[in-house]
């Protein structure tokens, strides 16, 4: 890691993105005091990770891990004791993650989705200001993922800040307010999801294609017109679409498609991290 500075605003869901091996989990482990940096310092809430700062943080790191011979409720009671919170808090968090009905069953009998929910419940025990979640939807089916997303949005709505590490771009796109992109231990971008995807183009399919390209070159300037297969991509403001359409029609060209095209998050992510499609 090198000079990594994440600015996570209160009450937002922050997505922490990066290809495998970029250092996401290492960053979170350092943040939580589980590992120490070989050099330099880690600061959380303006202080080194310690009793005071970590008291404000709940976390689920690298998947849930509990005592298999104990029930979900007993596991949470143990963690409540370690956290120094009332045991009555256990029922509250079981309710939040909708596990109350299975709380008396042994953890070893839980499905993966239930284990993830129990992990989330453990992260909420301290009523934290910041919840740090490392790949919380890993291995979940679509319904389980949706459940977690709803819970996270509800947490944010209740004023809790969520730092979510994920490699699932669609998930980040759906629930995160802002994202930070990590590559080789360095933060290469930190912005909102719409801004991360900025740089779209007006996509035009018109025929004959060569005549359309020449006409638009004269209209906009040749350097703003690019050919992409059977289509043209124009570096223009979306508001110019009407004028461009009128010009093409007036020139007798057949316009079959004219739409604003934004690059998807994956393309942006790969461009930022210099990765190949399977690296995400």
């Amino acid at each position, binding site marked *: 890691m090198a000079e990594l500075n994440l600015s996570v605003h209160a009450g937002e869901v922050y997505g922490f993105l990066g290809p495998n091996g970029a250092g996401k989990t290492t960053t979170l*482990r350092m943040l*939580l*005091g*589980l*590992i*120490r940096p070989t050099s330099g310092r880690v600061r959380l809430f303006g202080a080194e990770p310690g*009793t005071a700062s*970590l*008291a404000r*943080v*709940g*976390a689920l*790191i*690298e998947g*849930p*891990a*509990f*005592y*298999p*011979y*104990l029930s979900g409720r*007993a596991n949470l*009671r*143990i*963690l409540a*004791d*370690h*956290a*120094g919170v009332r045991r009555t808090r256990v029922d509250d968090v079981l309710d939040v993650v909708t596990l109350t009905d299975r709380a008396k069953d042994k953890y070893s009998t839980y499905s993966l989705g239930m284990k993830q929910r129990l*992990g989330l419940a*453990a*992260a909420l*025990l*301290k009523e934290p200001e910041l919840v740090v979640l490392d790949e919380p939807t890993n291995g979940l089916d679509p319904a389980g993922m949706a459940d977690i997303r709803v819970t996270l949005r509800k947490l944010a709505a209740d004023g809790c800040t969520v730092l979510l590490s994920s490699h699932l771009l669609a998930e980040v796109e759906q629930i995160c307010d802002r994202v930070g992109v990590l590559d080789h231990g360095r933060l290469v971008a930190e912005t909102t999801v719409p801004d991360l995807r900025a740089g779209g183009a007006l996509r035009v399919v018109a025929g004959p294609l060569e005549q359309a390209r020449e006409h638009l070159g004269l209209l906009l300037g040749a350097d703003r017109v690019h050919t992409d297969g059977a289509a043209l991509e124009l570096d223009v403001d979306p508001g110019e679409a009407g004028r461009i359409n009128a010009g093409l029609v007036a020139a007798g060209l057949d316009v079959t498609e004219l739409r604003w095209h934004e690059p998807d998050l994956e393309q942006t992510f790969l461009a930022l991290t210099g990765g190949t499609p399977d690296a995400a």
Partner: protein
Amino acid sequence: MLRDIRAELLKQSRRPASWLLLAVAVVLSLTFGYAVPYAGLDGAPASGGPGAGRGLSAMLPDAFVGSALGGLPIFVGALALIFGVLVAGSEYGFGTWKTVLVQNPSRVAVFGAKLVTVAVAGLAVVLALFAATAGASALVASLQGQALVWPSASDVLLGLGAGWLVTTMWGALGVLLAIGLRSVALPIGLGLVWLLAVQNLLASIAAPLLTWVAELQKVLPGPNAGALAASFGASAPGVEQIVGSGQATAVLAGYVVVFAVLGGWLLHRRDIA
């Protein structure tokens, strides 16, 4: 730290393996302290085996403290070591160190709670052994028509304390090995090899041949545990009064402190992978 102790006690008291270890300790103590010697009362070999000299008198109530402590340097010590490894090593096996530590307890407090749990479990084992052997000795006395003569309360309390110290020492070694090796299987394997094989080889083969090994025996945990048990009349393989009970107590207490400090230091310093 009280909350951490409560958490650790809950973890271990709900764990089936803890109760299995306790049951095995009691069954083995009764088997080799009473059932086997009683069955051999009339047909015991004249000499040779370690149990050959164990007659009726060793099974009567006034000798039950020694009988209860007889297994401590051997199998009960091994079981205490296994328990200590399970208390700390299972956190690596289950991957629960991170789950616990992100709740923000201090590592030293969690480690201290584990040691307290080992000590509490050690006391529970010794109490169970005392109760079981007292009952067995009363049964033997009634079967043989002997009078029920019990040891003094001070002897019983001193015996309990000695047993507690020995089990705690082996349990603390188990905790240290688990944290040092960050696993369960290897610490148990290495601990048992030391406790059941190396110590006996040193005592039976090396010590008679080499003076310095004989001297070294006086500061090793096993021989001192044996010496402490022997001072209460215990008779078993590895139970030999090579030092006085005072020195044995001091050495064992020293080991508890060393194991505790080393284990706490390792846990505090190391990253949690």
